[in-house]
């Protein structure tokens, strides 16, 4: 039913463009308003808080200072928490891609009539909350947990190995949460890649690894990037798993923000830590996205 612009006069064409614009504004408006009020405004307030001063006993004193940011970058304790968060996020993302890639490929290519059931199995870990899932890991990884009991029963270890309250436990715990997201993202990308291009690669003499490296991976790269970014952001901001499985001596940025607000009532510094976490996540995500886009174009 649309009328081409060429057939209309200049005025009518402008009117049509205006109508489209107002329709677009009407469609985008509510979401924009929601994001502005629900996200951008609190972020602006948070940034303003981060420039306030903290006076013990008075919670927050109006000021315009960058001392909270200076404190963060000059205190080794906070820098260590930041680098630890980056490291855990990097490792979890890498592992999620390595483990998720073949699983997603198998799910995408399977002809099984149980395909939907298999997808549901992948998503199953997301059916329980973070705390419940962590409780499960605790019973598995504890000193008297299943893993230690099994190792001792098999005669592999004599004393229990400390799995709980370690970086290892946190990585395993977060990986279990994030893996389904990565698998589902990759699976949808693989579904969109024509099987014929793989067959073409094989017919031209490529082995499975060469096919993956030269054909599948470049085609799936945008999806791989999306899954990786998703996983990275979730890990950077993880709270429950680091607290429950990392224990009191393992600090990541999410719990650090909470401690500043809740245990120390230091809102300005808590706001600064939040802002640093958010900025770092955004910058790294944007950088990764740009890198992939450039590679994808070439």
């Amino acid at each position: 039913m649309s009328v081409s612009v060429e057939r209309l006069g200049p005025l009518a064409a402008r009117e049509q463009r205006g109508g489209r614009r107002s329709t677009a504004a009407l469609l985008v408006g509510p979401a924009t308003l929601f994001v502005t009020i629900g996200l951008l405004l609190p972020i602006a307030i948070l940034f303003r808080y981060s420039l306030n001063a903290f006076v013990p006993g008075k919670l927050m004193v109006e000021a315009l200072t960058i001392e909270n940011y200076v404190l963060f970058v000059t205190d080794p304790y906070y820098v260590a928490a930041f680098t630890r968060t980056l490291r855990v996020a990097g490792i979890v993302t890498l592992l999620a891609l390595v483990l998720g890639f073949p699983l997603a490929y198998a799910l995408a290519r399977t002809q099984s009539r149980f395909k939907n059931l298999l997808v549901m199995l992948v998503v199953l870990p997301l059916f329980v909350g973070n705390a419940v899932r962590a409780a499960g890991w605790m019973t598995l990884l504890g000193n008297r947990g299943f893993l230690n009991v099994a190792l001792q029963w098999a005669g592999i270890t004599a004393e229990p190995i400390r799995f709980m309250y370690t970086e290892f436990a946190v990585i395993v715990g977060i990986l279990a949460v994030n893996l389904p997201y990565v698998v589902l993202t990759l699976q949808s990308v693989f579904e969109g890649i024509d099987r014929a291009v793989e067959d073409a690669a094989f017919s031209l003499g490529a082995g499975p690894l060469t096919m993956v490296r030269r054909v599948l991976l470049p085609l799936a790269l945008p999806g791989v990037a999306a899954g990786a970014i998703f996983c990275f952001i979730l890990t950077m901001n993880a709270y429950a798993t680091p607290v429950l499985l990392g224990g009191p001596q393992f600090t990541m940025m999410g719990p650090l923000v909470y401690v500043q607000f809740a245990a120390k009532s230091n809102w300005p510094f808590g706001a600064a830590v939040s802002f640093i976490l958010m900025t770092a996540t955004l910058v790294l995500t944007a950088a990764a996205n740009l890198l992939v886009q450039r590679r994808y174009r070439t």
Partner: protein
Amino acid sequence: MTDQRTPKVSRRQVLAGAAAVAGASALGLGPAHGQASKRIVLSTWGGDYAKLLTRHISNPVLGPRGWEVVNDEAQVVQRKAKVVAEKRLPKGSSDVQALTATDIAELTQVDVLEKLDHGKLKNAKNLMKIFSIADSPHFSPHIFSGKVVLYNPKLIPTAPKGIDALWDPKNQGKVGVVDIQHVYTTMAAALVAGGKTGDFDKAKKALLDLKKLKPRIYPSNEALAQALQTEEVGLCIMWKARAVQWQNAGANVLTVAPKEGIITYVSGFGIPKNAPNRDGAYAFLDAAMEASAQEGFAVDMGYNPVVGNAKVAPELKKRIGFGPEEEKLFVNPDLAFLATHAAEVKDFWDKEFKAA
């Protein structure tokens, strides 16, 4: 006749009236909250504590007097933040805040709590001397327990005499510490070092000495309980009320009143300065000190009454309470110190004591 029963009201009059009511409510001018309805908004922790408040105070004591208590349940951190955020409002959203003594110290500093009028609390005359409101005029105590030394006789055959047992090298590897109890552990360290609860410098030195013995640090009381159950550790400091709960659950643990002093844990109530229903708030605070309510909490929760006229069965008293000699050991937290140094204590705990 008909006209008298159903006076004619125009559509415009109805709309104007509705707008006036809505406007008055929005401006907080109406009698919607508090006074007229005799409604008290109690801001408290949820779970068993909230249920027991309803069971022993709101329903049996305040109900017959015509008060209706509405619970607003949340963690104390959120509730404190809300009270502070509402500071500038003429009317806040709560009449009573359930808090611990250490929370009170923090809120007193930011000047959001009402200085209590003793004349409005007839039951305050029954308060045990150590919990006198006069010492902390913004806080009305409710229940208490004390920090005792808890040990597993299988792992620690000789009963410890004090908190300093945690610092004894022969107990190395058997000591557990709870992360969320960092304030009380710091105060206990100050006592071990021969100081008072607010002697932070002495506490710091003692904590660094304890760190050398590599105590196991657990995130919560529950995690410590599990470690005691599995005999991963066998010595710690803990609230006596908790010890009783764990004993009931079958843990092989005993308690000792430490010679250095029993640091009290007091839970109670404060009234925000902008409480909409101040009379109701005072009625609640007074009802919480009724002997019957206090006795109910002793039976159902294992915490001790703060009033002398509450009667606790001798057998229960023996398990949860403290004898006359032990009562002499009671030490209250230094609230003035905590109000201004809580963040510093937490910083030291995180960066020095817990750091690898």
